């Protein structure tokens, strides 16, 4: 168990069955009053924020998390299926929990899946992934619009800005942390 005095920014705890991440924490004490702890938390499953004021002496259950190497297999409706690289066990994650990672997931991509108990709640992608450009307009030589980028649709359906010289069917490197084009794949 964690006591309220053990909480700090970054602590993970369970509230009403859900894992929460403490995003800010402060000791407060009104004049002549009791010690209180103001806590801002984020639900690690749906991202909802929560503000609570606790008294000293309150206890919390820590949320233990486990990160496992997995391979993305396939998607069915809003369910994404991953396979544990060691146990070959399959887990199914809701689209909400996959979050922005869905824009960069191709079958057989190796990822890290964050588990809260048996429940997968998040995906960490490699920082860079290679994805093929499905559609982009050709570069018109002598274009005087002054634009130094153009939209492109990737094989995952994700649309982003790429330099004008990128052509359809080309492989590009995407930074998954920002969702932006990084470079073209030489080859």
């Amino acid at each position, binding site marked *: 168990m964690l006591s309220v005095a053990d909480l700090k920014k970054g602590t993970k705890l369970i509230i009403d069955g859900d894992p929460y991440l403490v995003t800010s924490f*402060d*000791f*407060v*004490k*009104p*004049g*002549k*009053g*009791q*010690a*209180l702890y*103001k806590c801002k938390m984020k639900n690690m499953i749906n991202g909802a924020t929560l*503000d609570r*004021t606790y*008294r000293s002496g309150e206890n919390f259950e820590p949320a233990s998390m486990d990160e496992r190497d997995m391979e993305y297999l396939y998607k069915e409706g809003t369910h994404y299926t991953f396979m544990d690289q060691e146990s070959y066990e399959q887990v199914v994650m809701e689209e909400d929990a996959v979050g922005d990672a869905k824009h960069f997931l191709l079958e057989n991509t190796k990822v890290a899946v964050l588990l809260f108990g048996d429940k997968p709640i998040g995906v960490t992608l490699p920082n860079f992934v290679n994805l093929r450009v499905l559609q982009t307009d050709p570069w018109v030589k002598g274009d005087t619009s002054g634009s130094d980028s153009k939209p492109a649709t990737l094989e995952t359906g994700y649309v982003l800005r790429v330099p004008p010289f990128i052509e359809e069917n080309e492989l590009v490197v995407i930074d998954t942390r920002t969702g932006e084009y990084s470079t073209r794949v030489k080859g």
Partner: protein
Amino acid sequence: MPQSALILRAQVVQAIRQYFTEQGFLEVETPLLIPANAPEEHIDSFTVLPCWQLQTSPEICMKRLLCRGHQRIFQISHCWRAGERGSRHLTEFTMLEWYRADADYGILMADCVGLLRRVAASCIADGTFSRFGKKIDPHAKWAHISVQEAFLRFAQTDALASAENGRFDELLVSQIEPALENFMVPVILTDYPAPMAALSRLKSNDPRLAERFELYLAGLELANGFSELNDPQEQRARFEEANQRRAAADRQILPLPERFLDELSAMPPSAGIALGVDRLVMLTAGVETIDDVVAFRPEEL
């Protein structure tokens, strides 16, 4: 801490000294190591030698000076409160206290206005305090709100009932103080429920309330003042009650300041107030944490 904050801190302390000296107050120094603080339910002191504690406030000795006939006294001293550490709390901090004989809490409110205007004028280029980027102008008319009014307006509940059911502090911190952040002038929150009276006198026309006020700037509690209780029996009963509540909560029972109780009947009707100097420097410098206004944080010693 940037060097500028250290310079500002010295200027604030100088402005405080000049202000009170001009107002005819005597600057006093009382011992920091004392046999007994005023027992309070929620304040823990450090016992550093058998039977000797670091002061949590200079109030006991300063009131004994009033008993000896001093009329107007002030002191800037260090105080220690065990377990208090946060963005606006240090276990060792600097307190300004001043006391007036033959006065009540209304005069202290006027002192606060004079002091803050002087500090702002002497130490801040544009003459206004700031916090979270908001400006608080001490030269404008201050807001006076009763605790009851604040609870009804900002927490949609009754202050006296909240004091009875134990939710007072929680509501103050989660509803009232955030609402006070939006005031562009200093706010005086007056007339606390009697259970929060501490060492203050109850109102003669309504004993459910105490003649106690808190000064807030942008939601930051800066000072706590009251008309002082000078009835030794009543004071002893309140100390014993504080100890009973401490015992019920498994907290240490505190010794009573017996000499203070012996002399208290000689104290004229008086008023006294404690103001957090570190917090005043925070507001003067416009910084958000108390760590930014001290030469050393306890964690770096």
